[in-house]
């Protein structure tokens, strides 16, 4: 998986690719971090244990390192990418941490049966599961991710204001997936 920052007159664009959809989407998130901070510090070696995806499913515990988890849902794959990046920017502002080393653990289309439990009530706000925004019955796509949060006070970071839909691409290619996202700076 990899990303590149691309020139845009006023803003910043991230082009990413990966062997899987999960890796590609996580690479876009790492591109967002790179657009915010030129020198992202590595993990302090004594503070880390484990580190494999799946070994730290304890969520927002802050136990062994500074990783936190997030989950978003949306009605399409592209909307899910938008929601994921929007959520990272939101969490940056309220946690006062820059999310880096992003990992997408699950990105899936929830099948009809699994979706039924949220379908009954229908209207927005009816979902019981954590939803990215106002939960919605058509939210068939689900993403679980985690990231390491670096306190903003400890780094030289600039503000990326928002993710945009402008020129957004997320598409399958021969050897995996490619994405292109413009961020408002």
């Amino acid at each position, binding site marked *: 998986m990899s990303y590149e920052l691309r020139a845009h007159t*006023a803003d910043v664009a991230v082009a990413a690719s990966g062997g899987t959809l999960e890796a590609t989407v996580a690479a876009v998130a790492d591109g967002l971090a790179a657009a915010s901070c030129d020198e992202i510090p590595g993990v302090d070696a004594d503070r880390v244990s484990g580190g494999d995806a799946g070994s730290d499913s304890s969520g927002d515990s802050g136990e062994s390192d500074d990783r936190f988890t997030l989950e978003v849902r949306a009605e399409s794959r592209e909307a899910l990418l938008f929601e994921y990046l929007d959520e990272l920017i939101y969490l940056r502002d309220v946690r006062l941490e820059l999310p880096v080393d992003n990992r997408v653990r699950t990105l899936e289309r929830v099948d009809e049966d699994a979706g039924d439990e949220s379908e009954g009530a229908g209207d927005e706000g009816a979902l019981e599961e954590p939803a990215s925004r106002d939960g919605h019955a058509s939210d068939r796509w689900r993403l679980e991710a985690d990231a390491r949060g670096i306190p903003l006070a400890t780094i030289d970071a600039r503000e990326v204001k928002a993710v945009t839909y402008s020129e957004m691409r997320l598409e399958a290619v021969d050897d995996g997936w490619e994405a292109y996202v413009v961020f408002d700076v």
Partner: protein
Amino acid sequence: MTTTFDADGIVLEQVREHVWELPQEDGMRVPARVLASESLLEEISEDRTLEQLRNATHLPGITNYAVCMPDGHQGYGFPVGGVGAMDAENGCISPGAVGYDINCGVRMMKTNLTYDDVSGLERELVDALFEAVPSGLGGGGVVETGVDTVEQILERGVDWALEAGYAVEDDLLHCEDEGVRAGADASMVSQKAKDRGKNQVGSLGSGNHFLEVQRVTDVYDDAVAEAFGLERDQIVVLIHCGSRGLGHQTCNDYLRKIERQHGGLLDQLPDKELAAAPAGSQLAEEYYAAMNAAINYAWVNRQLIMHRTREVFADVFDRPWESMEMDLLYDVAHNIAKKEVHEVDGEDRELYVHRKGATRAFPAGHPNVPAAYRDVGQPVIIPGSMGAGSYVLRGGENSLDLTFGSTAHGAGRLMSRTQAKNEYWGEDVREELESGQGIYVKAQSGATVAEEAPGVYKDVDEVVRVSDELGIGDKVVRTFPVCNIKG
């Protein structure tokens, strides 16, 4: 014979000097216009600005034409420097045509100090301002508060700041809408937006936002300058910032709501970022109420920074700020949509005038110009880059005919941030400004200084010349930087 300009297949016809038109073609509901000299048009045509402007003409209810100001450049969805007026009954309102940073804008505060008073104190002043005014990412705000207070700010605007001791009555009288946008409803702003906003009230942010101490270097119109209280060598302060994370979140919240509820309309538009709610729909009303609330938040944001600046000047110059006559000249918005009545085909019509990276520029006599300036026209503040002059204009008499009462908002970017970082090194730029031009810059991030280097912007003098010659915004004074702080 008609003069044309061919920008890689997008052919514009010259209507008259500085006015270029892209005729209506497939899917366009109206023609598009670019107001620019040939040299500016060449710069404008180098990125996707013209394509984005053409896309904007697809929005329902767009009236007369979509217009690009002389400082226009590529944005997302709607171009930066774009003005589009959509019918408020049968048209639409588009969060994407307002932008993420709702009511990003500038205000200018006057002083009775001269350049001689400040000369020699620049370093002390820039350090004190940098220390006192929160900037950058995660730097907090002048006040850190709870959601209850945020809700009051959203609904009451600068009136809240007045009651809380961060403003004086006179500040309200020199702000659009007296600093309180009617029709704001805090309940239409999401909890997420409020959570982002509560620790950012009174903060610059980063990117192209800044606070700059300037001196007046040129006066072009003595009578209007006198009415504005501006004279040569006077020190003024310019504050450029917006509604911070609260505004950005509000824009995204409504883009997504529109995508979910009005997908049919969205499918007809050439760019998803142009997402629009049909006029009269519940979502249009809700977005308008939320956007108005974010406008109030941005006004309070700039007000609190101005208040903190007054305190810094009082410390540095060891006298009360009132004795330095630190009065607000005016506060202009760059990213808003506003219901305004304009004459269209001889009839008054209510329109949602979207200005994205454009400034309202109402002429003398317009009832919406504050009483203090009604005889001369609304002040328009156009910041240049940190190594170039800025301008104060007044709304020109042709602005209502040509641009729904609008003009440019700045120099307009020319070079991407990535390219800027390859070409400039922040510390070199800072040193060159200080030793070469006597401009003291202090920033949270060296990369920001590189990204905002003077060379990345269009020539502000040319932008203002075109505005002046078109009669949409007339030159009054020019200012030049003394100290600049940024995120």
